[in-house]
């Protein structure tokens, strides 16, 4: 019963501390809001770039062209062998006609006269191929090496450079995001710690009296821990609302403004984005509050 009463007391006092120390609490909440808002923007950027990169990775294919005169049965054999590989997600046969039709569509779009000048000739007559999609873009190099050794394969076109670029971009974003998140967290922890320190120094006399009349560590420290958690929590909730509004508007604007890039510029939905960002931000806010206040009470409230 004593513990429950003390817990309610700590929660009540935690809120009172925020009210009493309102200027510092307000400053802390604003700073954490700003930090977590930046974090949210960064997180959204990283997650969306990763999402786009993943989409691009899915569309990166290796193209294997056949030797002239390769029989249909050999082509089928190669197809079966490729489909049997664990690193291959999809194998698609592109006949010479398909290749020419695709080329016409992509390159000669709107230039029917030019297309007509070829008549019934197919300039890509020897360009039947397999388009092979890998499960993981990092495994592409090994696949290309194996393809080049196969009988009946004339040439292998791979997007090695694109794959490397994507992998490096992913790594860069991960490193930068970890660095920025760590920096923002340190700033936030420092600010909460300062706020709690001020609260402790203002209430030094009261804490001394508490100690003398037999208050436990939990009773003395609890309100400051609650104060830190509440500041962290409020500082986490506010930017989530802001981010939700801005994200929704921004995606709509980008999609309308850059519709030409809509093939690869595919954004995560607000719901998907928030399903990760909300628990992450709240946990981060509470964690920052807990860490900032916990370290401070340990340092200042020793008997």
């Amino acid at each position, binding site marked *: 019963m004593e513990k429950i009463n*003390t817990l309610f007391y700590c929660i009540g006092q935690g809120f009172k501390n925020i009210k009493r120390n309102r200027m510092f609490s307000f400053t802390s909440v604003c700073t954490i809001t700003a930090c977590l808002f930046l974090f949210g923007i960064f997180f959204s950027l990283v997650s969306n770039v990763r999402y786009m990169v993943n989409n691009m990775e899915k569309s990166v294919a290796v193209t294997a062209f056949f030797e002239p005169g390769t029989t249909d049965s050999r082509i089928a054999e190669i197809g079966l062998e490729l489909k049997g590989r664990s690193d291959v997600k999809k194998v698609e046969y592109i006949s010479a006609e398909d290749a020419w039709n695709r080329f016409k569509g992509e390159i000669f779009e709107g230039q029917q006269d030019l297309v007509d000048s070829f008549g019934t000739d197919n300039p890509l007559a020897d360009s039947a191929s397999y388009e092979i999609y890998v499960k993981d873009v990092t495994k592409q190099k090994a696949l290309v090496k194996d393809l080049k050794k196969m009988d009946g394969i004339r040439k292998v076109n791979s997007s090695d450079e694109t794959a490397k670029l994507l992998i490096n971009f992913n790594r860069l974003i991960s490193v930068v995001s970890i660095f920025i998140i760590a920096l923002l967290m340190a700033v936030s922890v420092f600010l909460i710690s300062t706020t709690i320190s001020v609260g402790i120094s203002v209430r030094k006399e*009261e804490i001394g009296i508490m100690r003398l*009349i037999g208050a436990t560590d939990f009773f003395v420290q609890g309100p400051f821990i609650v104060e830190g958690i509440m500041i962290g929590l409020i500082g986490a909730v506010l930017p989530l609302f802001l981010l939700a509004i801005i994200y929704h508007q921004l995606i709509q604007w980008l999609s309308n403004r850059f519709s030409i890039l809509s093939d690869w510029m595919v954004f995560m939905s607000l719901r998907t984005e928030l399903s990760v960002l909300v628990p992450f931000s709240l946990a981060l806010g509470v964690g920052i509050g807990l860490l900032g206040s916990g370290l401070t009470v340990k340092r200042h409230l020793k008997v």
Partner: protein
Amino acid sequence: MEEKEIVSMDNVIVTYPTGTQALKKVNIRIAKGEFVFVVGASGSGKSTFIKVLLREIAPNSGRILINGKDITNLKHKQVAAYRRKIGCVFQDFRLLKDRNVYENVAFAQKVIGVPHKLIGQNVRRILTLVGLGDKEQVLPKQLSGGEQQRVALARALVNKPAMLLADEPTGNLDPKTSMEIMQLLEAINQQGTTVIVVTHDNEIVNQMRKRVITLKEGEVYQDEEDGSYAKSLSIQNESLFSGLARL
């Protein structure tokens, strides 16, 4: 078997990090229900004596039993539980300035986790006992020094301690109010609470005719039942005051 002694100090030595030996092999026994004055000049070890009993500092050597329980080497977590069994008042009252009389006293009950509905009746009972039943909603700054000390006493007593420590409780009060506070302490003592008063107020000590333990340079200089402020200390204090007056 129930302990007869509430305080039992054996060869207690306290040396501060500066090298000052504040208590030198002090041996003191105080029985349950006693009223004891601890007197002495500045630097005699009175404050250290109170700090040791409040467990603000631990002795370097020796043994202290309170109500038969050894508090010499209490762990940090045990200190809070120990302090709940003793009440304390100070010269500067140490009240929470932003809370009214009721809240100041109720605070002591909240600290030990007393249920809300019991706090009200306990606080009102104790405020009536110290004569402040009609001043529940008043802030400390609106009270006289004597009334503030009564609030401090109510806070010290509301958790029904076995022992009350008073460190210069009349230090900031006029002689008439000082005597009222002492009479209140005597009444509390008569209800069974052990009262230990550390003071340099020789008039009070001489009027009350209680047991007086005199400390001098960290040692028990004199310990007498129905005692009085030692003459040598009075002379020492008088010369100190006259020296200060000349300055």
